[in-house]
């Protein structure tokens, strides 16, 4: 066990898919705020060093050539984005247990 400062909040702003991330650091070099640094171990996923400087623009997610990244909203925001299915009255939220299947409809536009 190490002596470490408390986890900064938000604790985890990005989820890396280990099966897809090849450690190319495209995300590191996209981030305008330099939130991440490359992992000293080549090929490994980057290290999120300054999570509290992430402003959640999603640029890193869009630039990832391997679609390995997910942007994780802070818990306070997962809990404040709530919806109700009109037909059943049931409540849902981002980050819920037993979620609904994804809605796969694409955004409008050709891009």
């Amino acid at each position, binding site marked *: 066990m190490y002596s*470490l400062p408390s986890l900064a909040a938000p604790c985890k702003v990005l989820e890396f898919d280990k099966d897809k991330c090849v450690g190319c650091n495209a995300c590191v070099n996209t*981030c*305008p705020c*330099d939130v991440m640094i490359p992992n000293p171990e080549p090929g490994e996923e980057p290290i999120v060093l300054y999570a509290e400087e992430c402003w959640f*623009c999603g640029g890193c997610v869009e630039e990832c050539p391997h679609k390995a990244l997910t942007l994780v909203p802070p818990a306070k925001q997962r809990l404040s*984005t709530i919806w109700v299915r009109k037909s059943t009255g049931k409540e849902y939220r981002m980050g819920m247990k037993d979620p609904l299947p994804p*809605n796969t409809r694409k*955004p409008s536009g050709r891009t």
Partner: protein
Amino acid sequence: MNWHTYVNKTGKVPKWPYPVNYGKENIITSDVLIVGGGVAGCRAAIAARQRGVSVVVADRGFSKRSGSGGAGVDHWHGAVKNPCSKVTPKMYSEAAMETTDGYTNGLARYIIGSEGWDALQEVEEWGVQIRDLDDEFKGSIFRDDETKLMFAYDIENKHCLRIYGYNIKPVVDAKMRELGCEVYDRVCVTGLLTEDGRPGARVVGAVGVNDRTGEFYIFKAKAVVVSTGHTNRLFNFAPEMTESQSMTNLNQTSMGHVIGWRAGAELIMMEQSGPNVLSGMGYAPYSTGNDDNTYQGSRIVDKDGREVHYADAEGNLIYDEEGIFKSSEEGSFVIGHGIALDHGIMPKYKISGTDPDLWSKVQSGEYQMPFYTDFPGMSDTSRDIIFQLMLAHEGKCRVPIYENLTKWGFDPAQDMLQYPVSDYGKLPLNCSWCGTDKTPDNWRGGEGGFLTDWRLQTTLPGLFAAGCGPLPSQGCHGESQTAGRYSGRQAAVFAEAHDALEPSRAQIEREKARCYAPVSTEGGDIGWKELNYAVARLMQDYCGEYKTEHTLDMGIRRLKDLWDTEGQRMYAGNPHELVRAIESLSLIELGLAHLEASKARKSSCPILGFSRVDYPEVSDDWHCWVAVSQDEGGVKARKVPVDYYLQGEYSGDLEENYRKYAELEGK
């Protein structure tokens, strides 16, 4: 993985991954230097390059994604010359002047109105979709079926366009690089260089520090465009809480204002202030039920499905969808949100809102909390234009909102999105994610910036302003792109007409010593965050709602004390922290500019959100701009007529001035 995981897993602290060379000099020469690679800066770079001059861009982040506009946009203000628009540049500009009693940037608005449609057509040419090419919204009230353009806020006057802009920054960035503009990413410009190092003299370059390597950059240029962002770090600071909900990131520190202030430029409107709406315990932008801005026109229902009606600016309830997108006054138009004109806006230009009696109807039990955006209760086209188009393309929406919501199963055809419960004391509902009653009242600076002429040249020869930071009272994505494009053109014309001047080595040395103090001081124990919190504390205390000559002087003294004491004990463990420390120190200078401007205006001014306890009256003698600047002798302030751009050397006619100065030949 996060840092803790890495350390726990490997038992090692990762070494700084980039080679560090504090103070190593890189000298870069160009005709035009652009400070800040956001949308305004990129457009300035492109416009200057297209005139044939060499262009260098210094960007604090990574220009493909940096700046407020780097995260996308769903509607474009100021393209009033689009073929469907019934608004003219004159109407656009004069409406802004009328609704603010003159306290607006009438000349920038005229330029934007004149060229906004050109600027938008160019991004279309480069690869941004601005029309409903696949006829998805054919026949809807928002669309012109001939041009396939779609409109926001006002479907009668059709001057504000809905666009598919989630990729707009990568597209503009690619164009800038393709044209041969030389881009220096990760370089924070920290100071301007002036002729002979004198304040108030011609600008001949700038210096900066790289936030990965710590190296020093000396940019020499014939003309400089400052296109940095507006800060949210001056009056408030709590990045752990606020970054996920902010529409500006931590890189935006109004550094352009600070370097201009230090170089002796005149700033106006710096005393403007207002309650902060994006602070504390807010919500992610657009992440909650809403009826405003991007959600304008969405159906609203209460807990039991009872519909909440919109109301026009006079409070008359609206029962049809078309009525939501019209002015309450025949012959007028809706200005719309986001272009620094919301405060105290005149009813005839105001956007519709929700039932003004909603709160009393909640108290009487007529409506039950919470409220919902009833997407399923809307027509397919009205729902899709908001969710599939605007919420998929607006800034900070594609990934954090559209992709995250749909990944977790949200389907607007079936699901209603809940409004926060915490805001009901502030009904009508409006922009629900912007702020909450649970946040303590606090204040922020306004939209002040550089005093410019019709060329958007500041009072320093060779320094041009662009974007919603440096240009006072200008705002939003489209306006910034358009004004940036104009400033770049003007900077190129200036560079063509002037010789390069060698910067003063003494000034470079002064700037360099200041930049590297946090890594050359023994025993530094004040980190950038600690200093930033202290600045925000002082600004809330001494530049808030209650100001007197005496308390403003106290604020000035304490900021200077902070600079002289804690500011001289800064700690930075690596180049990233060094640049953040330089930014935090620069906020002291920015705060001084706010306090000095507040001290200079001896009259309260509600339209600027400016109140003086010792000068409560709104005096006609002070219906003017207060231009503040500093030189070796101290701070200077002078009165400037609010419509200075229609007086003196200028014609009283907007179009005549525009034609004279716009450099349209050879465009």
